[in-house]
């Protein structure tokens, strides 16, 4: 049974087209290929699989990019063990993008398709980047449209639609010979079936021994979110870089979030080491409750732990080793790196309780999640 996957899939399509459409205005992105293995392991969920990205310039002014990505999911998460049965499934995603350079302007188009047994997502994107002020400033405007079809493995006749629109403006600015900054503003609007067809909410029920029962969650049919992000990267007096990031997030479900991160990049011969710390804190959605007072207590109700007030901390370590480089290269390959990273993620939920402990109603401990995220990948430039 697929619990807790719908939202993740829907957002990824947007992420990919926007991220891989990361063109430098005035210069086409470098030709490169990446072969990545990813593993997420935590909270009873293991997700792993490959991601392959290939980018190639064709002619003088056009660059194509394609990505193939697979998630193999095996889930016995807290949601699953308390209200459903562990499951396995697979999600496959394919995307294609094109960048066209004309003068100081880069125009990008993208298409992403994601397919799993009970969720299909298709995203189309368009962006324009313009270099200005002697190439010190890059302004990017982007728009994407997502169309999802939500199904259910329990009920083959169940089918609901979502549409999503994304508006983004980004400004990248060189401030000094050592400092580059970027400012991004994104508005995302959703309309349609936004909750998960499998997930339930918990309500007090004195008629049963446990003291509570479950009923399906019910979300509003619309959501609009705004996020503003600021990043600054500084070249230190020796060859190393430090980067700071901050993001403020707010949406019409009353989630407000602050995210901040700091990272340090240190090259050493053929090696490049990166260390990063990231912090995120958010309020909960207006309709989130861990335990509703009765059945159908409110118009909208949800118990998705990601909609709970929460705080997360992540520590990352990454290493990259350049095994092809210098003047000679390897045939047509100019440069090659092998890369490994681990992110240790810890999430503390401030209202979502762990009912799997069997504690008395209202006395269950707050849930915490720890996850390790491992990436291994090769990158080639040609």
């Amino acid at each position, binding site marked *: 049974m697929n619990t807790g996957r719908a939202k993740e899939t829907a957002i990824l399509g947007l992420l990919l087209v926007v*991220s891989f459409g*990361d*063109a430098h205005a005035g210069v086409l992105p470098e030709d490169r290929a990446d072969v990545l293995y990813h593993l997420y392991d935590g909270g009873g969920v293991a997700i792993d699989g490959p991601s392959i990205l290939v980018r190639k310039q064709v002619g003088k002014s056009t660059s194509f990019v394609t990505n193939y990505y697979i998630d193999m999911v095996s889930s016995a998460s807290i949601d699953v063990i308390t209200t459903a049965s562990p499951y396995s499934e697979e999600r496959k995603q394919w995307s294609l993008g094109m960048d066209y350079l004309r003068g100081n302007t880069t125009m990008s188009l993208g298409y992403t398709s994601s397919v799993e047994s009970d969720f299909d997502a298709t995203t189309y994107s368009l962006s324009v980047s313009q270099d200005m002020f*002697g190439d010190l400033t890059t302004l990017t405007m982007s728009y994407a449209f997502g169309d999802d079809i939500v199904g259910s493995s329990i009920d083959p006749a169940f089918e609901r639609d979502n549409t999503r629109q994304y508006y983004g*403006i980004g400004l990248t600015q060189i401030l000094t*010979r050592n400092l*580059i900054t970027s400012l991004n503003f994104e508005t995302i609007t959703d309309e349609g079936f936004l909750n998960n067809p499998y997930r339930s909410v918990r309500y007090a029920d004195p008629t049963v021994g446990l003291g509570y029962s479950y009923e399906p969650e019910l979300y509003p049919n619309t959501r609009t979110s705004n*996020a503003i992000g600021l990043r600054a990267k500084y070249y230190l007096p020796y060859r190393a870089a430090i980067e700071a990031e901050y993001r403020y997030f707010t949406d019409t479900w009353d989630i407000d979030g602050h995210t901040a991160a700091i990272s340090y990049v240190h090259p050493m011969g053929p090696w490049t080491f990166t260390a990063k710390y990231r912090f995120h804190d958010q309020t909960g959605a207006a309709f989130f409750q861990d335990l509703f007072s009765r059945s159908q207590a409110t118009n909208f109700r949800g118990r998705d732990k990601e909609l709970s007030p929460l705080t997360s901390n992540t520590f990352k370590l990454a290493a990259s080793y350049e095994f092809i480089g210098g003047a000679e290269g390897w045939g047509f390959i100019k440069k090659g790196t092998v890369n490994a990273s681990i992110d240790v*993620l810890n999430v503390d939920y401030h209202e979502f309780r762990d009912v799997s402990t069997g504690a008395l109603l209202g006395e269950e401990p707050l849930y915490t999640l720890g996850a390790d995220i491992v990436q291994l990948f090769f990158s080639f430039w040609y």
Partner: protein
Amino acid sequence: MKIGAVGRFLLPVLLLAGLAGCSNIEPWVKPYERDRLADPIMALDMAPVSSSYIQHVYEAREGARGGEGAAGGGCGCN
């Protein structure tokens, strides 16, 4: 609500476009001073395949989304 969002989206764009069209700002970081910015360690997105994956993980584990993209990342180094 939607009109408001689109308006907020377009206003700074129009302002900047106007600024770009009318002004003749002298680049204060000359092309020959951009060697450090051109160093791969200064890329705002050093590994796109990796950063989009990790953003996906955060989108799935947290209630927030968006605003983290490296917009352009153009340093005009080449």
